[in-house]
């Protein structure tokens, strides 16, 4: 295994709410190798987005990283000073959010927004930056003429590309993508995915890809981690997670997506509703919805165990 680019050890993130403290990310450990795409899948409230925010310490009150460490290139992100953190956020890591296309400033042209980012972090002139901005737009498949456009003059898909261009501007080694295509139509999503494949080949950055859409994940990720109620319950190479999942939740999740080809049969998905983080049961968080629930599941938390080389799952049954 290659030297890890990012290493997360026993990360815990809490939300302090009026009704108590909820643990949104519980004891999560994972690594991302250079050039690798790691997918994190799970439904809303499982902690996948919180994880993305926490890695760059962009989480806001009342969220709190209570335990753990985030090692990037040998440095702990959680111990960085404000200035180090600022540099880290742009030069090493950048983030693309689901609603990022709406985060562009509506009264400034996209060209200016791109050059601003470049000038703020690199010691080059505005002219050079403008050339670079045009180049970046070309990379994400937008014509250079669009530099003078305002965000509202572009479609949702184009705006999302602009955001990706901004994320690429400082050539980060890791891009965190939190549901980057969820708000887009399938055809536009496909265009952006195609763009992403090309860019990855060209620049070789790592991606932490967060999504609820497992089919999409199975396509783009090298490895997949599945989260449920704050816990990482299964992680391994994408093919195995998809074709031979070990954890009952992963199995159910994969069975929840009707396929476009293949046999047409009744699917059953997962019964019940996601657990409330403020009312977690003793033992496994998935016990109420699990068909294979045993006595031990109601008493002890299952721990992530190595099933195979680089393949882990957390279930008493395994």
């Amino acid at each position, binding site marked *: 295994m290659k030297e890890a680019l990012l290493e997360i050890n026993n990360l815990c993130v809490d939300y302090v709410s009026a009704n*108590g*403290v909820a643990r949104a990310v519980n004891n999560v450990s994972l690594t991302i190798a250079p050039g690798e795409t790691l997918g994190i899948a799970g439904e809303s409230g499982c902690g996948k987005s919180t994880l993305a925010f926490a890695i760059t310490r962009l989480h806001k*009150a009342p969220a*709190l990283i209570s335990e753990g460490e985030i090692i990037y290139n040998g440095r702990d992100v959680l111990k960085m000073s404000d200035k180090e953190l600022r540099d880290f956020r742009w030069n090493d890591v950048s983030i693309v959010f689901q609603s990022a296309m709406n985060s562009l400033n509506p009264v400034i042209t996209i060209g200016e927004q791109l050059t601003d980012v470049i000038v703020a972090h690199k010691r080059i002139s505005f002219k050079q930056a403008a050339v670079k901005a045009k180049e970046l737009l070309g990379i994400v498949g937008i014509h250079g003429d669009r530099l003078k456009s305002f965000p509202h003059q572009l479609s949702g898909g184009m705006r999302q590309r602009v955001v990706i261009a901004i994320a690429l501007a400082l050539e980060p080694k890791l891009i965190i993508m939190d549901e980057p295509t969820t708000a887009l139509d399938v055809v536009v999503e496909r265009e952006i995915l195609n763009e992403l494949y090309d860019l990855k080949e060209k620049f070789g950055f790592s991606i932490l890809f967060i999504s609820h859409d497992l089919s999409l994940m199975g396509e783009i990720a090298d490895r997949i981690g599945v989260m449920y109620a704050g816990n990482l319950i299964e992680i391994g190479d994408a093919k195995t997670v998809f074709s031979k999942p070990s954890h009952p939740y992963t199995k159910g999740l994969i069975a929840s997506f009707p396929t476009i080809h293949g046999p047409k049969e009744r699917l059953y998905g997962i019964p019940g509703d996601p657990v409330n983080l403020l009312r977690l049961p003793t033992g496994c968080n998935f016990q109420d919805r699990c068909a294979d629930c045993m006595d031990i599941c109601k008493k002890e938390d299952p721990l992530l165990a190595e099933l195979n080389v680089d393949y882990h799952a957390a279930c008493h049954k395994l």
Partner: protein
Amino acid sequence: MNNSITSDANAPVPGHKSEFKKKCHSAWIKTKAFFHGNPPAIIGVSLMTVILLGALFAPVLTTHNPEKRVARPHVAPNAEHVLGSTRNGRDVYSQVLHGARKSLTVALFAGIIAMTIAIAVGVTSGYLGGKIDEWMNFVTNVFLVFPQLPLLIVLAAFLGQVGSMVITVLLGVTSWPWGARVIRSQTMAIRNKEFIISAEVMGESKIRIILVEILPNLISIVFGGFLGTVIYAMGAEAGLGILGLGDATEVSWGSMLYWAQVSSSLYTGAWWEMLVPAIALALTGGALALINMSIDQVSNPKLKTGPHMKLWKKMNRETMKRRGLL
């Protein structure tokens, strides 16, 4: 706190007999939650309770007739007249309690009149839209651009010295446009929510949609507007009183200030005649403003305050320290 939630969820379903008891219980829980870690609410509500009790039981609590000469002019506070007497020999303590009745009644009813008009105009115009909205909006704007206090002064002067009843109505019918605007915009936001559309698809009548589906969603904003109007009306009543445009023979905080000013009580060292009604006004206004603030805090979770934020700050400081960042 945690305990009460979990025990609630696990409790067996009670039969119909305890329905009332259960409702009372849940109301009690809600009230407790409202006051928990909400100092503005605690201070505002207790202050207002004291003021209201004082006004309500004024005849019992006072020792003198507020409209009769019961002492020598400008007696300093003493055992018999705890807050002194006025130039005309009236007991200030009795006057301020009886005055509270008048001032609060005027403010309360002015608030009720104003909010009733505001709700009627705001919700109809916001929900129905179209031509009706255009017209109602026009009327609202006309009322909005009229400078209120000067208008009141002119009207009051025109009518001569007016009784509190007239002032109530005047204040009521001039201070609704602001509330109407806020309610209108809020209604327009709710109108396009899917629960309203689905009630329409279901065949629900327009009047029921307005009263049952929309209005209950506006309670916090209506109540906030009501308190704001009450504060304003109280101030305006006092203002008109000071200017001598109210009925100076009635006992209210406004007329007390008027007499205090006419008798130039501050110059003659009789500070109590001026300060007592002034402080009463300030305290009531403050209490109402605090209540308004606390409602905001509860109904708008984006205002990041409350006890859990204190806990967060404490925990955050601890983790920062542990990582050597502080």
